[in-house]
């Protein structure tokens, strides 16, 4: 029975229907308890003292004055938390509070706990820190050119954090076969998540020596591990509860210094301690989009078929490792899953700079190369005089294939996405045909449905679900996943309700509590619907199996005849012969004892076996295509996006209303990145953040947001629960390049970097009037010694996914 999974079939009752989210009512009545809404008796308030200088040695820290301030209960410095941590095992480079050195303006050096927040603020002025300034590193070229002083004493030399080089097939041979080879340089400015909720955390250390942390985190499991390491407590004595996140977008995916600091302060004082970051501090937490400089060389045949691609990316990582090694690989991973790229070479470098650390933001490391790739394809199509929509459509990666870099593509609905947006936007009558100042542009993209590998090496499931059925007919689903607004709690309820034939609102969902819920790795890499969904499906099917056996016996019907719907279990051949769902549970409980089941999910093994193959594989890929229509004022350079048509291949919508919301939200965030959002610093070695406030960090309001026409493409994927794929991140990706391509169609100038601000558009238009290249953007990339490539034969060449032995590489060369 277990083999006949309901999850491969067509859903009937709940899946695919626009049910309310299980927490919708709480969110619309102000009842949802975010981290800062928690208040405990005798609670203290913590603040962190942060560095006012970008790069310096700490000569001394003196907390003696602050401890005399009435209302200050304790103060700690880095010496009390000597162990390092970091999200990736290879980058354990953060201290909770800096010990000998600060690396960016905002790096914390001391923490205090006081009886109220005002006192805590005032107390910061009484901590005396002596710094010895070091030369600061402000940019990618700076970092490459300056080997001393080093920001960190690890990495690939000087201020280079990581260098990688991979080659799949012989790209030079591929360029030799091309009719046209283009080389272009692009820049994608960094930007930040800007969740409306500032990060907050509350710690409580109980008299029995157990620690509880409530925090607005997307990854309670990883926070749990970091706390155990740094606090030197047994993990079994630590409980992490992720509160509903007031927006995440990747910005709450690292373990943070403030989370560890409040725990330590709670352990020292024996009182609950809360910290809520100010908006300025949220800008310093950052972990947002890496600024990436890119060089891309692509060879194509006359019909636009790609023969080879060579991609180089230069990432400005900021002051710490964070997810940066993964981000670096991601800038080179997904180029191959949209259009067929038979030979592919990738070289990437991530530098340390004295800025807030970059990390994962919606699309993690892939919007930047996607921007470069899609704008370059537009340029190629123009040179080949092929319609850019048609050129993309012609050369799609086939469903069920393996790319040159060993990513397995399952379902692939990009062709349908392109058809929809081309027809809906009236592309054929608009592209190249609108009046000067108005234009349309197209771009496509793909994204993961969950990282194929966990962040730390292990063979355990990525997601676990526990179900408890009680004899009153109640069902409780428990899972470690964190709802960051995307609706992951609701997805669990919908899937369990579908399988058990009950209403989603009959189900209690308990999530993101390391004491109560089985591990789910967290809300990142668009993994939650696919992975927790599959785990929930397995747990629910196991429960259904137990109920079926008991009900079949009671009704005297064959087990294959037992169906579940409308809170009943019945004989499908004679639906009047039935029991209520609660009775079904009672029958099963009588027969088997207390009814609880578990389900778990581990992604399929990736065919890639080379070093670096861990980033990019996913159980499935979602696809998006977008057409943007823009209006550009040639006098001011102001770009107004009127409408975006977007098609997204979601496999199957577990809840179409929620899918629509994710598509529209992704378009919005892509629009912000394309036109205005930027995390920038004053142009000198002081590396002061230009905009650490919401007033000056521009993000789209209702007045800037464009109209959106959405098409949901449902091409079910065999690996998704009911065929579902991701939707939270992918639809952001085509938006910036579609807008850039539309600006070119409108006014004939290329802005090869985001954000596409009026100044840049105007500079390109004026440049053209002066006879210069009608373009704004970087022209060159720094010289760097790349490591020798790891060479892998492609599947088409008969490769096995393993690195070629040195001798073989040599013989071929």
């Amino acid at each position, binding site marked *: 029975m277990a083999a006949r999974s309901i999850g491969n079939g067509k859903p009937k009752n709940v899946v695919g229907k*626009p049910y*309310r*989210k299980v*927490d*919708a*009512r*709480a*969110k*619309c*009545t*102000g009842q*949802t*308890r*975010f981290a*800062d809404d928690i*208040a405990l008796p005798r609670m203290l308030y913590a603040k962190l003292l942060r560095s006012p200088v970008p790069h310096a040695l700490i000569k001394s820290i003196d907390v003696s004055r602050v401890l005399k*301030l*009435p209302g200050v209960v304790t103060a700690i410095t880095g010496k009390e938390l000597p162990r390092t941590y970091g999200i990736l095992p290879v980058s354990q480079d953060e201290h909770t509070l800096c010990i000998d050195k600060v690396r960016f303006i905002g790096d914390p050096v001391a923490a205090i706990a006081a*009886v109220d927040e*005002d*006192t805590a603020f*005032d107390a910061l002025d009484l901590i005396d820190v002596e710094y010895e300034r070091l030369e600061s590193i402000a940019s990618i070229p700076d970092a490459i050119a300056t080997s001393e002083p080093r920001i960190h004493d690890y990495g690939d030399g000087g201020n280079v954090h990581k260098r990688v080089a991979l080659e799949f097939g012989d790209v030079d041979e591929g360029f030799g076969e091309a009719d046209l080879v283009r080389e272009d340089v692009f820049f994608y400015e960094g930007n930040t998540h*800007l*969740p*409306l*909720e*500032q990060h907050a955390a509350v710690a409580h250390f109980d008299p029995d020596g157990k620690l509880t942390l409530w925090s607005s985190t997307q990854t309670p499991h990883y926070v749990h591990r970091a706390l155990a390491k740094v606090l030197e407590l047994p993990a079994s004595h630590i409980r992490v509860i992720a509160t*509903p*996140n*007031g*927006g995440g*977008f990747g910005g709450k995916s690292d373990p943070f210094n403030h989370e560890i600091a409040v725990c330590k302060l709670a352990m020292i004082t024996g009182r609950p301690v809360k910290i809520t970051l100010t*908006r300025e501090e949220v800008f310093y937490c950052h972990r947002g989009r890496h600024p990436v400089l890119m060089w891309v060389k692509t060879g194509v045949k006359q019909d636009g078929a790609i023969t080879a691609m060579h991609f180089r990316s230069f990432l400005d990582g900021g002051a710490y490792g964070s997810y940066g090694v993964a981000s670096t690989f991601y800038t080179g991973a997904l180029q191959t899953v949209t259009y067929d790229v038979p030979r592919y070479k990738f070289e990437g470098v991530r530098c340390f700079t004295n800025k807030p650390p970059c990390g994962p933001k919606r699309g993690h490391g892939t919007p930047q190369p996607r921007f470069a790739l899609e704008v370059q394809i537009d340029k190629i199509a123009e040179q080949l005089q092929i319609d850019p929509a048609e050129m993309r459509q012609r050369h799609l990666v086939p469903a069920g294939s393996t790319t040159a870099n060993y990513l397995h593509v399952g379902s692939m609905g990009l062709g349908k996405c392109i058809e*929809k947006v081309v027809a*809906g936007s009236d592309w054929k009558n608009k592209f190249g045909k609108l009046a000067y100042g108005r234009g349309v542009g197209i771009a496509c993209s793909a994204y993961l449905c969950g990282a194929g590998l966990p962040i730390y090496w292990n063979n355990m499931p990525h997601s676990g679900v526990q179900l408890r059925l009680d004899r009153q007919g109640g069902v409780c689903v428990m899972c470690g996943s964190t709802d960051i*607004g995307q*609706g992951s709690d609701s997805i669990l309820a919908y899937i369990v309700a579908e399988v058990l034939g009950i209403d989603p609102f009959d189900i209690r969902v308990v999530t993101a509590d390391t004491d109560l819920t089985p591990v789910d790795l967290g809300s990142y890499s668009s993994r939650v619907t696919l992975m927790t969904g599959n785990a929930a499906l397995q747990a629910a099917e196991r429960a259904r199996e137990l109920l079926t056996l008991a009900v079949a016996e009671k009704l005297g019907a064959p087990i294959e005849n037992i169906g579940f719907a409308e809170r009943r279990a019945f004989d499908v051949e004679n639906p009047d012969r039935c029991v209520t769902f609660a009775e079904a549970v009672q029958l099963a409980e009588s027969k088997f004892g207390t009814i609880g089941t578990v389900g778990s999910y581990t992604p399929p093994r990736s065919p890639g076996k080379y070093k670096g193959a861990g980033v990019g594989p996913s159980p499935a890929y979602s696809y998006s295509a977008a057409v943007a229509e823009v209006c550009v004022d040639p006098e001011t350079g102001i770009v107004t996006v009127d409408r975006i048509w977007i098609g997204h291949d979601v496999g199957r919508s577990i809840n*179409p*209303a929620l*899918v*629509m*919301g994710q598509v*529209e*939200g*992704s378009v*919005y*965030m892509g*629009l912000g990145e394309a036109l205005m959002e930027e995390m920038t610093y004053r142009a000198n070695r002081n590396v002061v953040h230009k905009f650490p*406030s*919401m*007033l000056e960090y521009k993000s789209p*309001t*209702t*007045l800037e*947001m464009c109209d*959106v*026409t*959405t*098409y*949901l493409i449902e091409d079910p994927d065999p690996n998704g629960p009911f065929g579902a794929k991701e939707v939270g991140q992918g639809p952001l990706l085509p938006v910036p390049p579609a807008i850039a391509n539309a600006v070119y169609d409108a006014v004939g100038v290329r802005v090869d970097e985001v954000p596409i601000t009026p100044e840049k558009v105007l500079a390109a238009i004026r440049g053209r009037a002066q006879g210069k290249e009608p373009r704004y953007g970087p022209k060159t990339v720094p010289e760097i010694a790349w490591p020798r490539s790891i060479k892998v034969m492609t599947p088409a060449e008969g490769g096995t996914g393993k690195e070629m032995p040195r001798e073989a590489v040599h013989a071929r060369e």
Partner: protein
Amino acid sequence: MAARKKQKAYLRFNLNGEVIEVAFAPHKTLLEALREDLALTGTKHGCELGECGVCTVLLDGLPVLSCLTLGLDVEGRDVMTIEGMANGAELHPLQDTFADLGAAQCGYCTPGFLLTAKELLEKNPHPTREEIKDALAGNLCRCTGYIKIYEAVELAAARMRGEPAEAPREAIYGCP
């Protein structure tokens, strides 16, 4: 024990239809008094400078940013927070449509949007899409792209006018 001498201010005002009394530090904003002294945490904070709109409450029926309003200024006045928007267990039509359409994703900005939209529909029962955008331009949302919010306001407006309205099919399933 406390860092400085404090004298609490004493305030009496109408909060969500009930006259309440509260003592709090006189320098506090209305936002702080609501969250910290009255334990009404439905009103949120996001930017500390009146830019994001998540702290919006209705003061004498008009939307104000509670982070920029001194608590002392509401003496004797009428304040509505998100906790007072539903009529007992019965949701306001806007709360219903926000819930049904997924206009609340993370939900952090939702109280501010709901109260701003409530005031809009009270003065303009038939707003155009442009009028809705204008009214909501002071509230930031990072999740929805605002579109589900517009659709929820339009649907609630129609229902409040007594029309038996449903959300457009394209809003939920996309275009065919």
